């Protein structure tokens, strides 16, 4: 694999809510350009908090980054607002595909591009790009997003993020509550973007099978800490990964001891 420059790196990030509830206690991960990285972990492992931390969303939920550094594109972004990060090309798709229910699918997409201040023609061509990626959305574009299916809402949410032309797309549980076929379709589209446009992707997933099949590398979180880091191909075959999700007694020390050094 060619060596790419580091686009995003988290180093020993600790985070709390209300200065009291500890949510992260040492998350480290890197995403290089043109790479797909999976962030794996069970419920409550801290995946969502980690993603919120790197997207600048913690302050709005009374959360704080207590220690560690988050560097995106060579700059410390621990104190950046989400709007600044979006303009810099770091865009997140929230868990649970939150569309703007009363706006049409197309208006949802348009709002996503708003931050770039596109003119009419540029907006049109950006919309076409999303419709080419998710043809379902073209048929549904006049329907309020709240009345579309779960899969279509996830596509809308991803399309909306893509309208901002991210360099790093961050997705939180895109497979949640969706049929396997739909999940495959969404991952295929993401993979295509990654291959054709060099989009870097960081995706948090509980569904490790799907995530590891498409990712280049993966990090595993347990109780707010990075416990495993390695190439997706290596992690795919390992039984202790499964143990993490099922919660069988593979201690973090054992796991750390067998951690293959990251690529």
């Amino acid at each position, binding site marked *: 694999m060619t060596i790419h420059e580091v686009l995003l790196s988290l180093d020993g990030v600790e985070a709390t809510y209300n200065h009291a509830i500890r949510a992260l206690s040492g998350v480290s991960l890197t995403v290089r350009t043109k790479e797909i990285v999976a962030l794996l972990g069970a419920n409550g492992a801290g995946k969502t908090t980690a993603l919120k931390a790197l997207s600048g969303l913690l302050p*709005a939920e009374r959360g704080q980054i207590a220690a560690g550094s988050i560097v995106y594109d060579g700059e410390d972004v621990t104190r950046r607002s989400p709007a600044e990060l979006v303009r810099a090309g770091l865009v*997140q798709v929230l868990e649970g595909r939150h569309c*703007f*229910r*009363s*706006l049409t699918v197309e208006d949802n997409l348009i709002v996503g591009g*708003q931050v770039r201040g596109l003119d009419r023609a540029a907006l049109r061509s950006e919309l076409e790009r999303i419709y080419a990626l998710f043809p379902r959305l073209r048929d549904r574009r006049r329907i309020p997003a709240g009345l579309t299916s779960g899969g279509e809402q996830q596509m809308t949410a991803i399309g909306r993020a893509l309208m901002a032309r991210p360099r790093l797309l961050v997705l939180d549980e895109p497979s949640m509550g969706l049929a396997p076929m739909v999940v495959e379709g969404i991952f295929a589209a993401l993979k295509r973007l990654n291959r054709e446009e060099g989009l870097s992707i960081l995706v948090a997933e509980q569904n490790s099978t799907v995530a590891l099949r498409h990712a280049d590398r993966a990090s595993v979180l347990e109780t707010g800490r990075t416990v495993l880091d390695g190439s997706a191909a290596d992690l795919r075959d390992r039984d202790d990964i499964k143990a993490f999700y099922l919660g069988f007694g593979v201690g973090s020390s054992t796991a750390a001891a067998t951690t293959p050094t990251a690529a």
Partner: protein
Amino acid sequence: MTDLALEKTAAAAPHRASPALLGIGALLIVAYGVLPLVASEYLFDAILTPFLALALAGLGLNILTGYAGQVSLGSSAFMAVGAYAAYNLALRLPGVPFLVDILLAGLVAAAVGLLFGLPSLRLRGFYLAVSTLAAQFFVQWVFNKVGWFSNNSPSGIVTVPPLSVAGLPLDSSAGRYLFALGVVTAVTLAVWRLVESPTGRALVALRDHETAARVIGIPVLRVKLLAFAVSSFIIGVAGVLWAFAYLRTVEPAGFNLDRSFQILFIVIIGGLASLRGAFLGAALIVVFPLLLSRLGEALLGGLFDSGVLEMSQRIVLGLLIVTFLIAEPAGLAALLDRLWNRAWNWISGRFRRTG
């Protein structure tokens, strides 16, 4: 609240041969061309002018509550700020044209709205509603206590100077109505442009899902404050109309919590996040008490005195609001849409059969 708006959009989704534009055109012709010629003074003073002022206030609140999803119970405070600001401007800066006064009064109301909108950066829903009550009580109290605002008139009662614009006296019933109509038309047009603009979409995005709006780069705090400012500006202008075109003598007690609720009911009954809704709701709120009193007199005669009237008004209005919230949360606007669609289907069905 998002569910309501969703239903509204769904109901409006099938596009018919743009009846909206035809309807608006016809309404404007009637409002500007026909009514000034045929309406009586009573119709102007008791129905049309207060209807216009309240519709404008509803329009303003609808931006904040209907579009941006921020609940406010302080609307009549902003009306009061607009009214008293215009009064003081007219009194203390007599050289300034009245149209400029209105604009400045709106800006003063916007500034006050911005100030009381600050809690919205931290509070949501019910808590925000309670904090906007602070605006309601504080403003009313200030106008009562600080004599300067009312030129030291007892209990803050002020009588505004007769309305005239650019040397043209408009102090007849029809003149005041036409003036109000002109202001309401201009503001409505501006609001329509606003809600169709990217900013309008940002307001709805904020209402539907604040965090999702934040992740796609909408400056949520700025948009919230903007909603408060624009909404208060419009409600302030509505206050100017209320004082200068409708009552001509106002007191702080007239801008009480009841009036704030009245404006909120206009928005709920008319239809959240709908421009027509504000007008439909205001029409209902203005006409309904008059109808009720006529009806009561006809049915009960002397038994139906003003006490009974007020009581029955409250009861019926309360029932109406509950009914609307349950049966048609998207308000009169959605109700009319549905009726229109049904009528259109029926008509086009006929056509097909005969033709």
